[in-house]
């Protein structure tokens, strides 16, 4: 309940002052370049990494990227770029972080 209230408060703040929501609410920001590359900012770690699937922990839950010949182009504490032939991007509730 308190998390929802906090989320609502920060969301309202972001909308009122036109502040980027991913900054205020710590949401993952995903930039997709066709099917060739994905750039994910604000991730919270890698759960699984294989050439056909990459699963990341985010504030919204588990982000699953499927495809073929997937490679982590660049990996740092909060950013990861995934290159290869991307077939799908899906959110799941497994491993959801509500902190």
């Amino acid at each position, binding site marked *: 309940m308190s998390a929802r209230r906090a989320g609502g408060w920060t969301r309202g703040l972001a909308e009122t002052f036109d502040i980027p929501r991913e900054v205020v609410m710590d949401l993952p920001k995903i930039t997709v370049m066709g099917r060739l590359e994905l750039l994910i900012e604000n991730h919270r770690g*890698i*759960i699984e*990494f294989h050439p056909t699937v990459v699963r990341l922990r985010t504030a919204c839950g588990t982000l699953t990227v499927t495809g073929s010949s997937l*490679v982590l182009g*660049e*990996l740092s*504490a909060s950013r990861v770029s995934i290159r290869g032939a991307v077939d799908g991007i899906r959110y799941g509730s497994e491993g959801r972080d509500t902190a």
Partner: protein
Amino acid sequence: MILDRIRAYLSGSVVLKVRGTDLEKLLNAAGRAGVVLKSVKRHGRYLLTARTSAVDCRRLRGLVSPTQYKIEVIGKHGFPLLIHRIRRRRMLLVGLVASIALIYYMSSFVWFVRIAGLSTLSEDSIRQYVASQGIRTGMRRSELDLEELERDLAIEFPRISWVSVRLRGTLLSIEIAEKLAPDENAPKAFDVVAGKSGLIVKFIPLAGRPLVREGDTVEAGQVLVEAVRGVDGVDEDFSGSGSAAKAGFVSARAVVEARVWYQESAQVSLKDQEIVRTGRQKTVRYLHLLAWRIPLGRLGGGFEQYECEERDEVVPLWPGSRIGLSMTVKTCHEVVAYPIVRTAEQARSEALRLARARALAAVPEAVEVVEEMAKVSESGEGEHARVQVEYIVETIEEIGVEQPTRAAP
């Protein structure tokens, strides 16, 4: 992106091979520690490769237990590696620096003198004069005064109308343009002669003695209007040239238009073959050295049917050099012969097309064609049957051309 690559090159990078269980844990630990990994590829369950900076590689090794993860460097790239290699090969560095220094030092001298643009002046005389001014191969470039040399050359050789002296690297280039002097042996007066055989349809003599009339048939080279010995005070316009007037001869001038015929023939067989290039070709170069022709490479397996062409070329030893390697480039094209069977009508139109094209090709540009005639004949039978076409194109054109007169001494 480019700046990132330059930075990565300058800081150096290593390619790692990491073996162990739960490799995702290693990736997360690296991320938390600020280690940036690039091009991370998974090769099976227990193996991945990644690229990182040399500094991050050391940090990564410190993060994990060597018993849990085996980290192996399988490649090194970048400037620090280059420096490391050079340090190990000091004599290579010394040689490189010495070579650059030697090239720099040697490029401060003049090693070649090229003289271009001469027509009547001899190259030797220019070279001797240039040498007499203290300019020789092996002298320092800084000792040269190009403008002074230009001035001296123009003063020493009155026939020079323009001279340019330039330094291009170690090449001293002297370009000369000579004055155009009147030709003493030029003819004094001219006749008008027929440039082509034909039937004169328009004849207006303007100067000289006319030898033909309208309606005459003339042969190529026949004199139509002859230059005549003039009288004192002849009109300059009629004289053709001032020198001719002084010599007492009046050049002939005339408007001469004539009917001219161009005749060409073509022969086309009913059964023939067409040679077509397949596009496959092989090239070999031959180097000419004294009396030898040395092949550079082999033509390889020959084609079943082919046609070859050769062209000569000279490859300069250095840019702007007049000295070069004489070579012949021989290119052989694979060809295929396709049989062609024509009807009599097709052969006739093909022969007409060929003969007409040949006849029109002989007609000068901007000349009016007034009539075209064709005579078609057939000969042979069966496979040897062929169609022959004689094609005549008739034009009306100016045929008078000037030629040094035979009357003048």
